[in-house]
């Protein structure tokens, strides 16, 4: 399959089952809501080293937030409920509670719940008060700028992590151009985050290492400076390869995000130095979700031709 001169390789992206939650951070204005959200989602690129993958999902208007103030929706993904709960509470406690004027609310209604303010309330040292409003419990913790308002719990659900797109380009600037276009397109979608810096990854990893103490190491078959090795997969025209990793709440969300990303890259076309799009996988044995690029792009392909 070739779209606008860009080859779509006949392969698939392999993704994993995760647990995800959503919280809504509000503040007196977007500036402070964003400070809290960015701090909370910092150092949350990969579950391998950070425990959780997190990112800003979207900005929420003050007419949509529970307390009528500007808000930001944040999604967090982890491998299991326990880690997700622990990471959520640590990050809320250190990054949102501390941020001036903020409040935090559940972004997932119903279903299974994990603690949000349930344990953070103890910071109130006995001066915290709970309020049961509309069947939901909130905690009011006295802080130096007034009160920190926090929902007691938030919902969580099964989700998918590790959806991906790999871009092969003639140079770094071409690869960046492609990634930025794809990231902008994917960023418009709900239920999705791209947890790596700016949404792009330059250090894709493979499972295992020659060193016993490492579980993952550089994906050397995709490194352009190792093109002379027999196991390298990059063609001679390729000087840079970049990846976009996508976590989503459902399989459909991830598939749609991948489609929009590939479409945005293909719109740029081969004339912009983009040679090929592929997907990262481990042979299909590790993750239960396989996103076949050509299936995802089937409908879009018909539009292009």
């Amino acid at each position, binding site marked *: 399959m070739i779209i606008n001169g860009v080859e779509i390789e006949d392969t698939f992206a392999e993704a994993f089952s995760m647990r995800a939650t959503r919280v809504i951070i509000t503040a007196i204005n977007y500036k402070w809501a964003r400070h809290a959200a960015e701090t909370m989602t910092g150092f949350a690129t990969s579950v391998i080293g950070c425990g959780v993958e997190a990112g800003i999902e979207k900005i929420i208007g003050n007419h949509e937030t529970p307390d009528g103030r500007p808000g930001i929706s944040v999604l967090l993904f982890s491998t299991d409920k326990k880690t997700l709960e622990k990471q959520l509470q640590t990050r809320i406690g250190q990054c949102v509670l501390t941020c001036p004027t903020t409040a935090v609310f559940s972004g997932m209604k119903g279903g299974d719940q994990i603690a949000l303010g349930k344990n953070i309330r103890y910071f109130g040292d006995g001066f915290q008060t709970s309020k049961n*409003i509309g069947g939901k419990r909130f905690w009011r913790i006295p802080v130096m700028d007034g009160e920190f308002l926090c929902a007691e719990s938030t919902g969580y659900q099964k989700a998918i992590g590790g959806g991906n797109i790999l871009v092969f380009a003639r140079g770094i600037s071409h690869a960046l151009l492609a990634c930025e276009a794809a990231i902008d397109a994917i960023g418009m979608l709900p239920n999705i985050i791209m947890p790596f810096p700016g949404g792009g990854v330059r250090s894709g990893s493979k499972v295992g290492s020659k060193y016993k103490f490492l579980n993952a190491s550089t994906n050397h078959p995709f490194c352009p400076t190792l093109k002379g090795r027999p196991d390298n997969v990059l063609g001679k025209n390729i000087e840079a390869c970049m990846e976009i990793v996508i976590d989503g709440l459902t399989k459909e969300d991830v598939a749609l995000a991948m489609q929009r990303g590939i479409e945005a890259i293909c719109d740029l076309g081969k004339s912009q130095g983009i040679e090929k799009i592929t997907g990262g996988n481990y042979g299909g044995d590790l993750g239960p979700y396989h996103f076949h690029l050509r299936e995802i792009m089937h409908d879009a392909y018909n539009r292009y031709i």
Partner: protein
Amino acid sequence: MTHTTVTYKGPSDKSEVKQRLDMRWLSHAICESISSDAVKKLPLLVGNEKFTVGDLFDISSKFSNQSIVLENSNTNMDYIGRALATNIELTVKGNVGHFAGAELAGGKLIIDGDAQNYAGCSMKKGLIEITGDGSDYIGGAFAGDKKGMSGGTILVHGSSGNFTGDLMRRGTIMVVGNIGDYCASRMIAGTITNLGTIGKQVGVGMRRGTILLPHKPKDVLTGFHDCGRHNLGYLTLLLHDLRQYKSTFQSLHPMRRRIQRYIGDTTVGGQGEMLIWIG
């Protein structure tokens, strides 16, 4: 929607009814979906006179409907709507006696008239709406009990009497009109709010919970300390909740959150709050 109508055959004027009437049979019949014939045979003691339900009430159909209307009620009828479970709506056309909606367990009790003492006493869940006035101990506890209502909402479109929310543990009491003396006495938690005036000794013995008032009471107890003026974010959530009921509370703007805050009753080690709207 079809509903079952229960009509009292006796006089509605209180002066002509000398004895109190225990209405717990009605909740029993509603919750157990008993047939109208069986209900009519239930014994009913009025003073020392023995009646059956059928002697005093007309019942239109079996209690399988989720909507029930009680007509021609009076202030001698106690325990109307006691312990009604979820999804059952009982509308009372007329005044009711004591303990209306006591131990309500999720149902909806609409009283189109006034309620006597202990309305919503020890209720757990659900809604009691009183279009007229409520009397004393609304949302309170049964005598001897250590806690009053533990959930749900009581909305009084008129005024309420003394000891409103006495020993209240959780839930919300909304009074459109005035509240009498000793409001939130010994309150454990929950929320009481009104739009009119309030009497003496507000929050006496209060441990926790919120009293939200439009005006500062004439006498603030010595156990309450002024904590200054603040914008409290949770008030927006609370106002959204209050505004869901069709009442004068809907006139409050949801972004109104500036208040004067008092905490007390510190004479009992309480950390409750009395909030007075500003502006």
